[in-house]
């Protein structure tokens, strides 16, 4: 339990911290430190196990089917990182208390800081690689928010965006890499992956996986060529820089390399990719750091350089180099965090970070100056400080690489050169800031020492630098041993942690670097002049240019595909469906299944031939819209005959009534529209469309043929058996609609209602003037409501209503039901509108169709909900038989109420749609007014 708790605690703290913001900065700092302290206490009991090289595993299932679990794992390496995160985190919490101003949003700051702490702990403690990935992305997100904490500054927002783009992009690569690794190993659990090193390295996908994982690590740890985001992230408040950009987040990539070291390292690819990247980063970072006038800029580039050093050590591939890398992680975190804090103090007390202005601070703040100078000396690699020890190990390892010929000289030379730069920029940090004359034009003058407690975190870290430097074996030995053992995943080579190893080549390199660096600093003006000759690349401008190029090309691509032409979209849609279907279709061929073809009778054949001819004729003659409509109605009638022919009476009745409504609807639409479609498409386009259409038709024919002749199994037995005993009706289709699948039907009538209301809303307040004639120059008939039609239509209404009542009531047992009855009623009413006009009919049918729809839905829902009151689930139906006088025994099913809802909704929706369209014309109202008058 304790490991998930360690990860969870900071997140809980992040939720709680803002509550203390009212109590002032001290209160919230104390509250924020509680989770870290408890987490440290929770880790402490595990130390004996870990010191012996043991592993603590706590695992809970999350998504076992996907191989994701809440599993946490603690070994020496993760302990080392967890301690760095928690201890430096605590110091940062204390430091930020004095760094932030009272009016700033401290609640947000501490909350984000704790979120970040939890995410980092998640990375180092996760045992499941996918879980680790989740935390990895969380650190990218929280660091984005922390860098842009001062979000009123444009630079801060841009820097944060750049950091997110680079580390987030790397995160995607890492995800791909981890998925490949998991696929190779068959598990995402760390223990399995680490044990499968040989399998991974011999797999054909190893280079791909390695590249992707390293992309993730290099972007996060600001390795060349992705290093540019780190200096721009210095727009963050200094506690954030000290925490994220020296000690923790940028070490996440390093941690990943260390974590997967047994699984991925030890090959040539690893050696070349990692060591050369590290070497380039080491040199570039150190060189640029020399020339930065911004205090934090110098430290940021120095961080880049040191991260390169650690990467290079991992890349060397020897076991001792890995030990040195782990050691340098500790040392760099301590001296760099303290240097950042010192830089923050100087910024805080002088109001600027420009080294050309802040000079001679020794006189004003000797205490801070002493601390900063010790830390800077450690950064330079001065003996008796921790930086010296790991750098010495680095020098020694650079000599041990067995590279052929000339190449053997490269690593030691690069190492010494980087050492010279490091000494030079450290010397600059010390001399420029604390000596070198007097301060120039400081915003805050005179500067003085910061509050007492602001220096405590720096003191603790500097003390650690000295302790490790002087008594390495006692202070850090056991922890380093445990971490190194966990990194290597096996026996640790012999190494000695002492202040000095006697006079040897690495010591000579150290001295060369030291004096070379001092010499370089003394001659700095020449180097500055030399450096000034080159035009400095503005990474931010390049980055912005790349981003805007990407955006414009994406826009260009989008506008090419999406040009606003519906014709093109429809064509693309059909073509892509064809493209997807073409492979299975070609393998199908002209497929006639085992059932074969059944014989056909003449009437059916004639019907089908007429249907095919009419369908094709509709397409051919579509320019004459009226003819097309007539042909369409023939097709619709034949379809409903087809339903009747193939044993679907309900469908035939529904299709027939829908057909009538549809044709009325289209006639009504045609009244407003031009009656003729002009020729607009070119011949080639029409041929293209015809080919697409033919392909689609052929495909559907083949699929249908294959389906109809294939073997047949159905789940319908259940419905046939239970229709009468379970649903109380013999018309199985209707029982399915109102009972078995009642919920579906409820959804469908809701869609119907929404469509009708949408139509109403779209046409409200719209006026359309119909063309004066039929397009061929004939005026409309002046007699809008012919006498004969009126006389026939009126007596039809009660007859039609009676028929629909009959169809409705018998629906449960015979073909019929709410849908069909509703359509018949609707047609009868529409006929009155056609025959007698809007006003006349509205006058006699005083319903608002919105209310009819609402009532219908209400009935359906009540019928469904009523079953709750009897303790049954939604839409459970019941039925009984009652004896009525005259009628005799009569079945009453609760589903009838539901069907009544369907009936009303269908009427309301159909009429609302048609009346809305009929009302469009400005003439209709006037004419019918005259009529009624």
């Amino acid at each position, binding site marked *: 339990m304790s490991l998930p708790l360690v990860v969870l605690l900071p997140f809980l703290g992040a939720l709680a911290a803002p509550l203390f913001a009212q109590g002032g900065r001290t209160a919230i700092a104390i509250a924020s430190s509680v989770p870290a302290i408890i987490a440290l206490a929770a880790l402490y009991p595990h130390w004996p196990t870990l010191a012996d090289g043991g592993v603590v595993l706590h695992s809970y299932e999350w998504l076992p089917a996907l191989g994701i679990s809440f599993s946490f794992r603690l070994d020496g390496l993760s302990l080392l990182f967890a301690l760095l995160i928690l201890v430096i985190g605590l110091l940062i919490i204390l430091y930020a208390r004095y760094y932030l101003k009272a009016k700033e949003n401290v609640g947000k700051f501490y909350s984000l800081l704790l979120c970040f702490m939890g995410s980092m702990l998640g990375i180092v403690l996760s045992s499941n690689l996918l879980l680790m990935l989740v935390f990895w992305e969380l650190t990218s997100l929280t660091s984005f928010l922390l860098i842009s904490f001062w979000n009123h500054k444009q630079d801060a927002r841009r820097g944060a965006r750049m950091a997110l783009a680079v580390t987030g992009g790397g995160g995607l690569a890492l995800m791909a890499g981890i998925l490949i690794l998991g696929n190779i190993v068959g598990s995402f659990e760390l223990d399995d992956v680490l044990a499968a090193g040989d399998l991974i390295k011999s797999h054909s996908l190893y280079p791909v996986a390695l590249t992707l994982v390293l992309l993730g690590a290099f972007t996060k740890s600001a390795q060349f060529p992705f290093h540019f985001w780190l200096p721009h992230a210095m727009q963050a408040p200094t506690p954030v820089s000290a925490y994220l950009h020296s000690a923790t987040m940028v070490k996440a990539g390093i941690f990943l390399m260390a974590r997967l070291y047994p699984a991925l390292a030890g090959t040539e690819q690893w050696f070349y990719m990692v060591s050369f990247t590290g070497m380039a980063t080491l040199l570039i970072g150190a060189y640029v750091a020399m020339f930065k006038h911004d205090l934090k800029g110098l430290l940021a580039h120095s961080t880049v350089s040191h991260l390169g050093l650690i990467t290079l050590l991992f890349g060397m591939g020897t076991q001792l180099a890995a030990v040195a890398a782990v050691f340098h992680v500790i040392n760099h975190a301590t001296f760099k965090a303290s240097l950042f804090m010192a830089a923050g103090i100087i910024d805080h007390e002088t109001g600027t970070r420009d080294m050309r202005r802040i000079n001679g601070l020794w006189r004003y703040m000797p205490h801070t100056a002493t601390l900063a100078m010790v830390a800077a000396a450690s950064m330079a690699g001065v003996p008796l400080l921790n930086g010296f020890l790991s750098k010495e190990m680095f020098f020694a390892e650079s000599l041990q690489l067995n590279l052929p010929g000339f190449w053997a000289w490269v690593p030691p030379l690069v190492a010494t050169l980087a050492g010279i730069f490091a000494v030079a920029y450290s010397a600059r940090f010390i001399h420029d800031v604390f000596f070198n004359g007097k301060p120039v034009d400081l915003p805050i003058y005179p500067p003085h020492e910061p509050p007492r407690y602001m220096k405590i975190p720096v003191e603790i870290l500097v003390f650690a630098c000295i302790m490790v430097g002087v008594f390495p074996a006692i202070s850090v030995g056991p922890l380093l041993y445990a971490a190194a053992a966990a990194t290597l995943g096996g026996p640790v080579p012999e190494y000695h942690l002492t202040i000095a190893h006697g006079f040897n080549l690495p010591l000579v390199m150290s001295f060369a670097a030291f004096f070379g660096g001092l010499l370089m600093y003394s001659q700095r003006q020449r180097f500055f002049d030399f450096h000034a000759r080159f035009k400095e690349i503005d990474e931010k401008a390049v980055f912005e240019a790349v981003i805007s190029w990407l955006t414009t090309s994406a826009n260009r691509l989008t506008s090419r595909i999406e040009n606003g032409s*519906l014709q093109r979209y429809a064509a693309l849609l*059909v073509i892509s469906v064809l493209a997807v279907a073409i492979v299975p279709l070609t393998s199908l061929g002209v497929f006639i299944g085992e059932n074969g*073809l*059944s*014989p056909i009778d003449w009437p059916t054949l004639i019907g*089908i031939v007429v*249907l*095919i001819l009419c*369908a*094709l004729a*509709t*397409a051919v003659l579509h320019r004459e819209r009226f003819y097309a409509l007539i042909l*369409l109605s023939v*097709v*619709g009638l034949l*379809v409903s005959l087809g*339903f009747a022919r193939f044993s*679907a009476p309900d*469908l035939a009745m*529904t299709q027939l009534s*829908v057909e009538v*409504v*549809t044709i009325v*609807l*289209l006639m009504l639409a045609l009244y*407003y*529209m031009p009656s003729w479609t*002009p020729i607009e*498409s070119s011949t080639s386009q029409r041929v293209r469309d*015809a080919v*697409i*259409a033919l392909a*689609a038709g052929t495909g*559907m*024919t*083949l699929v*249908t043929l294959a389906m*109809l002749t294939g073997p047949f199994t159905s789940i*319908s037995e259940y419905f*046939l058996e239970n*229709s009468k005993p379970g649903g109380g009706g*013999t*018309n*199985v*289709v209707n029982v*399915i*609609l109102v009972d078995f*699948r009642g919920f579906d*039907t409820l959804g*469908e009538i809701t*869609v*119907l209602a929404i469509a*009708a209301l949408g139509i109403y809303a779209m*046409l409200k307040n719209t006026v359309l003037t119909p063309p004066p004639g039929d397009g061929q120059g004939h005026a409309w008939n002046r007699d809008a409501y012919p006498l004969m039609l009126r006389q026939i239509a009126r007596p039809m209404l009660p007859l039609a209503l009676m028929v629909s009542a009959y169809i409705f009531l018998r629906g449960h*047992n015979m073909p019929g039901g709410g*849908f069909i009855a509703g359509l018949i009623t609707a047609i009868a009413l529409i006929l009155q509108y056609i025959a007698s006009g809007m006003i006349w009919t509205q006058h006699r049918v005083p319903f608002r169709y919105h209310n009819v729809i609402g009532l219908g839905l209400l009935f359906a829902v009540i019928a469904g909900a009523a079953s709750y009151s009897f303790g049954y689930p939604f839409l459970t139906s019941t039925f009984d038989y009652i004896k009525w006088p005259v009628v005799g025994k009569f079945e009453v099913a609760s589903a009838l109420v539901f069907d009544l809802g369907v009936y009303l909704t269908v009427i309301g929706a159909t009429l609302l*749609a048609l009346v*809305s*369209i009929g009302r*469009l014309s400005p003439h209709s109202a006037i004419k019918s007014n005259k009529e009624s008058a």
Partner: protein
Amino acid sequence: MELAFALAIGALTASGVYLLLRARTFPVVIGLTLLSYGVNLFLFSSGRLVTGGQPIIGSTSQYSDPLPQALVLTAIVIGFAMTAFVVVLALRNLADNEDDHVDGYQSEPKSRKKTEDAEVSGK
């Protein structure tokens, strides 16, 4: 029988798709209606073509499959709602743009000419 039925569905689909790709709203609506006939028949035929087997309990010895029928029944009604909605979209397009092109305008030069004409006649 099956071949004829399949050809009918193919013809409905082909005509429907061809009309769907036209530039004016009315043919597109007709095309959609034809397509929905084809789709409904296809769905219906997944219960196979049975003669004289209406799924009314007690009326026959061998029943056709009632499930696709129930599905298609609602599909017909929903299809009508969709057709009505598309028709209304087309009418609204006609009312707003005074044009029944599917994109609301025919092409850049033509529509510009139109507005110029309107301006001239307005003067």
